[in-house]
């Protein structure tokens, strides 16, 4: 079997033979579509995936050929496109919180108290994620939902790795505040 060329080589060849770029789609579109779907639901994601690759195709000259995979770069383009769909994203996140709480309540091993916690906690987590500044939310969700490494998140968002680390730390801190009982009380007192 002939081994297939790495992404950078395919993108390089596509400068002269544009059709070759279709291979990048075949390789990564399923992953990227799932990402878009998790963020904004199937309907918008299906419309966005073509646009994402069209933008990638138009920008293919700017792809850094030293990178092994084009996937972080595609995640980055997708993340930018998603910023126009914040309302759909928030709606989906709130629905996911309700479903996660319901799932917890249906778990027979969970105590009533745990189910109650879940009902209170998950909507607050959704709210907290929603309230994060765009750059922190993008970094957090690429890391937590897509399992990207710090290096890949840095490539996707075109940031130094130190900046990614500090954004993720800030996002973690904000979420951790929700989990601490004191944090809850403080929230109520406000």
């Amino acid at each position, binding site marked *: 079997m002939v081994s297939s060329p790495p992404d950078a080589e395919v993108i390089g060849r596509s400068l002269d033979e*544009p*059709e070759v*770029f*279709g291979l990048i*789609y*075949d390789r990564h*579109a*399923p992953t990227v*579509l*799932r990402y878009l*779907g*998790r963020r904004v*639901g*199937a309907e918008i*994601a*299906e419309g966005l*995936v*073509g*646009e*994402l*690759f*069209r*933008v990638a*195709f*138009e*920008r293919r*000259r700017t792809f850094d050929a030293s990178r092994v995979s084009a996937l972080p770069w595609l995640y980055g383009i997708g993340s930018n496109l998603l910023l126009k769909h914040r309302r759909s994203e928030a709606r*989906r*996140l709130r*629905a*996911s*919180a309700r*479903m*996660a709480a319901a799932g917890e309540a249906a778990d027979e091993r969970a105590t009533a108290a745990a189910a109650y916690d879940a009902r209170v*906690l*998950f909507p607050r*987590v*959704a709210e907290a*994620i929603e309230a994060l500044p765009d750059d922190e939310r993008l970094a*957090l*969700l690429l*890391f*937590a*939902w897509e399992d990207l490494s710090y290096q890949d998140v840095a490539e996707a968002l075109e940031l130094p790795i130190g900046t990614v680390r500090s954004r993720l730390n800030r*996002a*973690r*801190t904000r*979420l*951790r505040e*929700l*989990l601490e009982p004191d944090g809850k009380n403080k929230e109520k007192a406000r």
Partner: protein
Amino acid sequence: MRPVDLARKLRREAAFEPSALDRGKAALMAAIRRESEPRRWPTIVPQIPYQDVTAALSFLERAFGFREVLTARLVSSDGAIGHATLEFGSGVIGIGPEGHHGTMSPKTAGIESQYISVYVDDVDAHYQRAAAAGARIATGLRDYFWSDGGHRTYEALDPEGHRWRFHQWIREGPRS
């Protein structure tokens, strides 16, 4: 539970139609074919000078719905945009920094020496979009009629004072 695990609990898969990926591929391949074909460039292309090309580009896309031809962008060594090309329907304009080719932005000159007419399908929708994006409306929507038809227009100023006149052709006579 760690904060990241908490966020992970809210990850939920979307249910896609089986054909979802096919449509995206078709959209991409159509874009690829468009680039492979020789571009039918208009024979006249206005070149418009700005003090801040990046801001102008973003405004023209956001407010007027123009689309940059990304492959045609020129970037200077300091990262600034040296020239950008935008499409709208069958029309094309270029934008670049003032001072080149003897041009000056109205923001610098204090005067407009021309305006550009743009023909759109739905001028009311276009007006709403431009106004919402912060375009200064110089003349609100108005209908003009002649014996063989008319048009509905408005005029907007972009952030540097270039004047844009948007028209929609209308066939029926004036409403009484």
